[in-house]
């Protein structure tokens, strides 16, 4: 069992690559064989992800610093152990949900490509599987270099997916997407190096390490001066903000989405955007608490600007896919807003929002793709009254629209409400945390996003689904073996997402039960107002760090830094 839990994350990450290799070398040139092989690869990955989640919830394997299924082996080191970069994997209650999301969306995206991708299918499915590997790798990495490698690696398959199988302007879209993201990532890498260098010079470990738990401990110890934190924060944020995408660096997104093939859009909106917000939660916020607090107002203003701006821009689109793309800008603004409330509610909301947005927006892109395959247009002036032609599609589109606009009882609501509660109550202390930077003044403009969200989504529904039937001549095109309404395969793709939307809306407790302890430990530890149980907590931290480092000097140093931290936060906040 220990062997399994030690290696399961590695298996999760590399399973899609194995699948890609099998697709490349093990398939004939028949499209049907290629795609079923790809499907098998991604389904096996999903199975492994589910196993990993199960093992995590059982508490199997090594748990270090609160990261379960921990595995580390040496990667780069110099002779006298001054450099310590490892292949370290581990997941917690936050990343496990993003892993599950990725594991679920990839097979669905592959399944959705069955009817639309016929040329160069082998390359296509290989790239999709490689992309899956990259995304899974980001969520499993506990070493910054590894994280960064996977983070950047996701660009390459998506670049080719958009550039090769995209629409009319695919080359421009792919280039724009690539340049925006790379420009941001370079700054992120600069921030990472500065952080590691600072830790090497001033930290206690005495080694040049990119180990995320070590860096988090270092950041939380308060040893990084505020001025330095600001610079590192800005560096890290540059790359993450482009990925999210945060206003005003979002302009690559609508173009990339409109030009990408359906599966590309699904994974882009469903998972890739979350790499940015995940970066915030895993790195920027825990390592740079003061930087985060200093920039919280700025980030929140940008996030709210994105919420409103994205919604208004979505409303005037004629292209359904572009509308959904702009809705992503709006929604991801909510997600960023929630985390900068620096409150448990807002943070939980953000994580929920990542998963929920991943489900509902991916599903919307899937539905739009299914419409496009039949009508060869996404222009709302040429489409109308499709509820009569495609009643089953209409049911799904309405469910996902409602989920997207945060109807209570569906998944979107939970995240949205928690984000708003966190933002509004950021200045309050009744949740046992020190007061955060935001407040009602931020919640009010953000809440307009709810109204605007309903406006553009229902606008879209009304034009596409309702009213008199309006179809371009010669459509619906069923030449690719499609039926006028959704066929069994397409219903099979959408049904799991719809069911999850309902389950998460009605019974989100398992998610919240797993997310909140992880956030409490990894992100907000320094913001909890210390009560009677702080001794027990300190014990806990020491015990775990013992486990992690196993070096007596280091242990002493860590204990010291923890004590400093406790004393420090006590001093600062007068408790």
């Amino acid at each position, binding site marked *: 069992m220990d062997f399994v839990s030690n290696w399961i994350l590695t298996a999760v990450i590399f399973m899609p690559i194995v699948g890609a290799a099998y697709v490349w070398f093990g398939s004939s040139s028949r499209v049907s064989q290629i795609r079923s092989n790809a499907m098998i690869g991604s389904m096996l990955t999903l199975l492994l992800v589910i196993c990993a989640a199960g093992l995590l919830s059982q508490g199997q394997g090594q748990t270090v610093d609160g990261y379960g299924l921990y595995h580390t082996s040496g990667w780069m080191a110099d002779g006298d152990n001054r450099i310590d970069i490892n292949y370290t994997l581990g997941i917690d209650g936050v990343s496990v949900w993003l892993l599950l999301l990725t594991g679920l969306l990839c097979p669905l995206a592959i399944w959705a490509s069955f009817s639309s991708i016929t040329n160069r299918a082998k390359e296509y499915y290989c790239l999709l599987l490689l992309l899956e590997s990259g995304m899974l790798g980001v969520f499993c990495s506990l070493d910054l270099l590894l994280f960064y490698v996977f983070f950047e690696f996701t660009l390459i398959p998506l670049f080719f997916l958009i550039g090769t199988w995209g629409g009319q302007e695919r080359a421009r879209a792919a280039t724009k997407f690539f340049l925006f993201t790379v420009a941001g990532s370079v700054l992120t890498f600069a921030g990472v190096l500065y952080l590691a260098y600072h830790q090497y010079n001033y930290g206690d470990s005495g080694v040049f390490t990119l180990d995320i738990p070590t860096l988090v401990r270092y950041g939380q110890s308060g040893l990084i001066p505020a001025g330095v934190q600001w610079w590192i924060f800005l560096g890290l944020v540059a790359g993450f903000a482009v990925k999210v995408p945060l206003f005003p660096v979002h302009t690559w997104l609508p173009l990339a989405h409109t030009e990408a093939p359906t599966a590309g859009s699904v994974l882009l909106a469903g998972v890739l955007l979350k790499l940015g917000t995940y970066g915030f939660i895993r790195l920027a916020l825990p390592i740079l608490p003061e930087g985060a607090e200093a920039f919280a107002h700025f980030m929140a203003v940008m996030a709210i600007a994105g919420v409103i701006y994205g919604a208004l821009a979505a409303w005037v689109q004629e292209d359904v896919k572009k509308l959904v793309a702009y809705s992503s800008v709006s929604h991801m603004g909510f997600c960023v807003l929630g985390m900068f409330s620096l409150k448990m509610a807002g943070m939980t909301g953000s994580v929920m929002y990542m998963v929920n947005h991943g489900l509902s927006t991916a599903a919307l892109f899937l539905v739009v793709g299914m419409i496009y395959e039949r009508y060869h247009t996404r222009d709302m002036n040429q489409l109308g009254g499709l509820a009569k032609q495609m009643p089953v599609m209409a049911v799904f589109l309405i469910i996902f629209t409602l989920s997207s606009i945060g109807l209570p009882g569906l998944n979107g609501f939970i995240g949205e409400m928690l984000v708003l509660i966190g933002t509004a109550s950021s200045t309050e202390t009744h949740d046992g945390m020190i007061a955060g930077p935001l407040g009602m003044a931020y919640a009010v403009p953000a809440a307009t996003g709810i109204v605007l969200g309903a406006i553009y989504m*229902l606008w879209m529904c009304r034009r596409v689904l309702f009213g008199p039937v309006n179809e371009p001549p010669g459509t619906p095109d069923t030449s690719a073996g499609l039926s006028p309404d959704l066929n069994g395969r397409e219903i099979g793709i959408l049904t799991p997402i719809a069911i999850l939307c309902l389950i998460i809306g009605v019974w989100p407790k398992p998610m919240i039960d797993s997310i909140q302890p992880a956030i409490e430990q990894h992100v907000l530890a320094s913001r909890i107002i210390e009560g009677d149980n702080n001794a027990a907590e300190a014990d806990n931290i020491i015990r775990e760090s013992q486990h992690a480092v196993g070096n007596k000097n280091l242990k002493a140093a860590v204990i010291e830094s923890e004590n400093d931290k406790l004393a420090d936060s006590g001093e600062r906040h007068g408790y």
Partner: protein
Amino acid sequence: MNESLITNLSVLILLLPAAGAICAGALGPRHLKGNSHWPVIFGVGGAALAAITLLFQVVGAGEDSSLLIVLYQWFGAGGNSWFNVELLIDPLTAVMLPVVTGIATLVVIYSKEYMRHHDHPERGYERFFAFLGLFVFSMCILVLGGNFLLLYLGWEAVGLCSYLLIGFYYQKPSAAAAAKKAFLVNRIGDFGFGLGILLIYNTFGHLDYATVFEAAKLGLDHDVEALASLISIDVIQASELALTISSRLPIIALLLLCGAVGKSAQLPLYVWLPDAMEGPSPVSALIHAATMVTAGIYMMVRCGVIFTASDSVMMFIAILGAATAIFAATIALVQTDMKRILAYSTISQLGYMFLGVGCLAAGSAVFHLMTHAFFKALLFLGAGSVMHAMGGVIDVRRFGGLKRILPVTYLTMLIGSAALAGFPLLAGFWSKDEIVHAAFNRHVLLGVVGLVTALLTAFYTFRMMFLAFWGEERVPEGVSAHESGKWILIPLGTLSIGAIFSGYVGVHVQGGGFLGFLEPHGSLHHFLEPVTAPFAAHAHDAHAAEVGHGFFAAIAHHWLMYLSALLSILGIAVAYVCYVRRPWLPQVLRATFPQAHHVLLNKYFVDEFYHAAIVSPLRKLGRFCYQADVFLIDGIVWTITVIPRMFGQSWRTLQTGTLQGYGLGMAAGLALIIVLVMMTT
């Protein structure tokens, strides 16, 4: 009170309609088809029986009549604070549930015949019943929910069902537009409502009714110690909190009011309700008359502690209600679409209920809510029956004199109209009179507006009746009119019994009062007292002082009742003169005041104003944002990329590849260095 029985009953009330809806939705398209109404009839009917049983249980419980049932933990905001899925059973819930489920049952039965043409189910028959079941489920959550989040859930879910059902004939562009408008206008109100909930959480750190109301009460009384122990904080924090509470409650109340204004179609957000008549008539009867639109009143009564904290907020609600009541009534005077007349009348009657709440007569508002549910549902269903017979035509100018063709419909609608008009001894008379009375106690002007509206109500209601049922017999061309079948007539009959007698639950027989023996404020008000206590605490209990002696003393004391009875009869008489005796009179009036008629007919141009003032500027802003994306932001990015490109361009010219050039450059550089070295040494 039998807790386990009540728990089972309330869960049953929720599950039965949901199960019916799921059955109809899942099995309808393939298997049930034309029989899709059965699961919903059983589901909603079963819920109605359970609701009535529940009412008797709660009535039997006497004083200790409130029970909180926690089903499971929903989601949490960190720490140990969880928002639960919990149900609250108290007198208000116990009264609302039978009204909702009872009327819903009748509407579902009615729809079985209404949603067919020549005995063939309409397209989307199963969809219709599934949505109705879903609506009843959502409305029950709204009424049963034990915290603000469940209230919000129910609130949005009924809005969704309303959206889906208004847009039932989705291929009609007007229906699709009306559905969207309804949802959006409601969302604007819900924006405030949501912020109100956030502010409640900010203030109290809890969202369940019990804690919030208790804390609000303690905060207002400045009972610091009890407050501290209630939400486990220390006394210093509690005394700060008490101050915060008293300053914030009015703001919270105003924010919550936004939601009520949207849902209950008050000024200025009423615009969605008349358009909502694009939905099938049973939907108008159930959702847009009897149940969903009263959610705002339910919420205000439920949150009495919060609303009564500020007297000016209550006054504002009263003024808003009175203004809406008379405003909508004037529009109803000239409309010709039977369902739209009833829609404006609903807005006006909801205005009465707001007036009642604002005048601290919460019990009377709930009383009017209940009686109104009966007679307005009856009128809408009757209008549907007329429409059914007229082949879908509902414009009163295109038919007339139907009383012989549709005798049962006519009779039942007559009862409903009389009840709406406040004809003495019918349901509407009792409840409306109480509200007008409370309004007079509050301010004379409010009372006068209430009375004038009562007169207008009687007039436009009977204008509609006379135009449709009296005079020369006319039907639209090609229509063979016939009376509806028993599935339609039985609900009509049942509801007309309600329209006659439902007023008597709020009246008690005693010396004094109307006609010397009927006294207002009967058992219903007494039953609701635990819920309406915050209102009563603020009201100058005028009614308690009024115990008349003898017939004439009672008349003197109850002059208002007699006056409103007179006004009701006067309104009916004027309508009779104008539309039966002297049909040329309205034409003369219209010719004399063309502007006034034009303004009323176009509903004061409010829709046009909203479009010009809100919708199109926002669209313009949206286009601007998109253009900014394309030109401004991408322009800046492009400019930035130009810099390295120019850099590259300029250096590229040096890479000529000719050796002479490179040699020259090397020589010149060497010379420069030598010169520099020599100069420095």
